[in-house]
């Protein structure tokens, strides 16, 4: 061993230089700093999409089927200015949020049961496999029987569309929590609900967040579709109703304005709620990468 002796180098000792006391963020060129900002980059994506839409619509030249971006924008601004669009959106949002919260609560109960007992696990996987593929219209008759017309039934189908995907995602997240973390939690004497709340939920938060995003989107889809069917009792129709009415009357620009409202809300909620949540939790905790 050590047969080929390498060049002998002398021992060296160094004087320790003091470290810089406080470090500032490295200066970036201005254009990179602007690009660094999420909103700006996404704004660019949006502008490009709008341009593509405009071009496509002009080329198709069939504004009863596909109005241009500008036409839609005009209808959107008119709808907002007249207050109609905002009122309808408010009605929809209130139903949506209520159902979303109920759905989250129900998913939480189901997955907590599944985390605690084998019966709960069987129940969860059987129920999701059964009910998740059922379209809202299938539940309509049953909903009518139990909740009558109006909000009750609407919320029933909305909960249906929130509950299952969220429960699936959350359960998958729970099951993937690392063994060592589980052991740590149980070592603290945590059991039952406290174990779920203090260990499983935070540890599975990335999965839960993706479930929340998915079910938020599906709640919208279902709401718009269900309001078409359920329509409005006593003139209190929401966004879906607005879309439906205008579609029937072939005011396609207003239809797209209504849909644009859904898109805008989707973008705002993504940017303000979900991104913020991610930044404050999983990214801060190093459980989710921010860059590649």
């Amino acid at each position, binding site marked *: 061993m050590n047969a080929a002796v390498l060049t002998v180098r002398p021992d060296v000792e160094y004087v320790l230089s003091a470290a810089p006391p406080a470090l500032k963020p490295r200066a970036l060129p201005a254009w990179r700093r602007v690009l660094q900002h999420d909103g700006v980059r996404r704004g660019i994506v949006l502008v490009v999409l709008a341009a593509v839409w405009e071009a496509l619509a002009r080329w198709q030249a069939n504004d009863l089927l596909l109005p241009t971006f500008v036409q839609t924008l005009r209808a959107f601004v008119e709808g907002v200015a007249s207050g109609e669009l905002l009122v309808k959106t408010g009605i929809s949002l209130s139903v949506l949020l209520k159902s979303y919260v109920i759905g989250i609560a129900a998913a939480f109960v189901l997955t907590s049961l599944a985390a605690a007992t084998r019966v709960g696990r069987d129940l969860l996987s059987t129920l999701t496999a059964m009910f998740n593929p059922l379209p809202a219209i299938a539940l309509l008759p049953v909903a009518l029987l139990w909740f009558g017309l109006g909000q009750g039934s609407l919320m029933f189908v909305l909960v249906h569309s929130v509950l299952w995907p969220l429960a699936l995602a959350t359960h998958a997240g729970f099951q993937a929590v690392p063994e060592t973390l589980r052991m740590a939690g*149980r070592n603290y004497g945590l059991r039952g609900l406290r174990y779920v709340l203090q260990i499983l939920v935070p540890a599975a938060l990335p999965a839960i967040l993706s479930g929340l995003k998915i079910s938020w989107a599906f709640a919208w889809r279902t709401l718009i579709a269900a309001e078409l069917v359920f329509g409005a009792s006593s003139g209190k129709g929401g966004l879906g109703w607005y879309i439906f009415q205008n579609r029937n009357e072939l005011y396609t620009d207003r239809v797209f304005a209504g849909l644009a409202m859904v898109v805008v809300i989707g973008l705002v909620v993504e940017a303000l709620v979900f991104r913020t949540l991610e930044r404050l*939790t999983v990214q801060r905790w190093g459980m989710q990468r921010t860059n590649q």
Partner: protein
Amino acid sequence: MQLPLTQPGADAPPQALSATPLLQLAQVSIDYPQGEHWVRATHQISLSVMQGDRFVLLGASGCGKSTLLKAIGGFVTPSEGSITLAGRRITQPGPDRAVVFQEFDQLPPWKTVRENVLFPLLAARRCGRKEAAERAELYLAKVGLAKFADAYPHQLSGGMKQRVAIARALAMQPELLLMDEPFAALDALTRRRMQDELLALWDEFRFTLVFVTHAIEEALVVGNRIAILSPHPGRLRAEIDSERFGFNNAGSADFQATTQRIHGLLFETPRAAAGVEA
């Protein structure tokens, strides 16, 4: 410490203590599923850990030390035999046994270093918020991480994570402390400091310690009793008394000789003749 320390009193003979071990393993075997069949990790191990013991589990990599410790922690159920703590069978984990795991990912990543130390104190309702905060401060200082109290685990080095886990377990001031190679990721000096702290705390509170290590010197210095395990599957090879060793006599001839003897017990194929049936 919750339990009043049982001192060998004048009216009780010294053997009285050994008559009621705090922790008793009786013919414990543990199997893991592997593909279609089972693999035995530890095989018929019997051990008695007395109140106030600093009991070391020593053995080669893969000999079942962690498995045994997890069984004492209540995380793994033996397939044979029984583990009793103060006469009651261990069926589940609990905050009466604080555990330092071997893995680096034992710290909930969503809690800062300080919150990580506070977490079990508050979860197990060991003490009030204020006392918990004081304890956290104290034990973080003891492991040299006071400056990092507000960092998140992913911002720490491997050794720093282990030290947080140590602080967390010590802050619990449990009756029974289970530590799985807690100092393996630490440099000589930090390790020495941690060993010192551990022994000083033991001196103060006289808890019972079950300590897994793969370093013979550490076993001799930290433990007062050493169980030596043989691998594949883990079986008990010997039990050695090491009460007499400490930092002060780490260079002594007795120390060296015992080190050599343990080395032999650990790594030489046992000669049947030398064995003494227990």
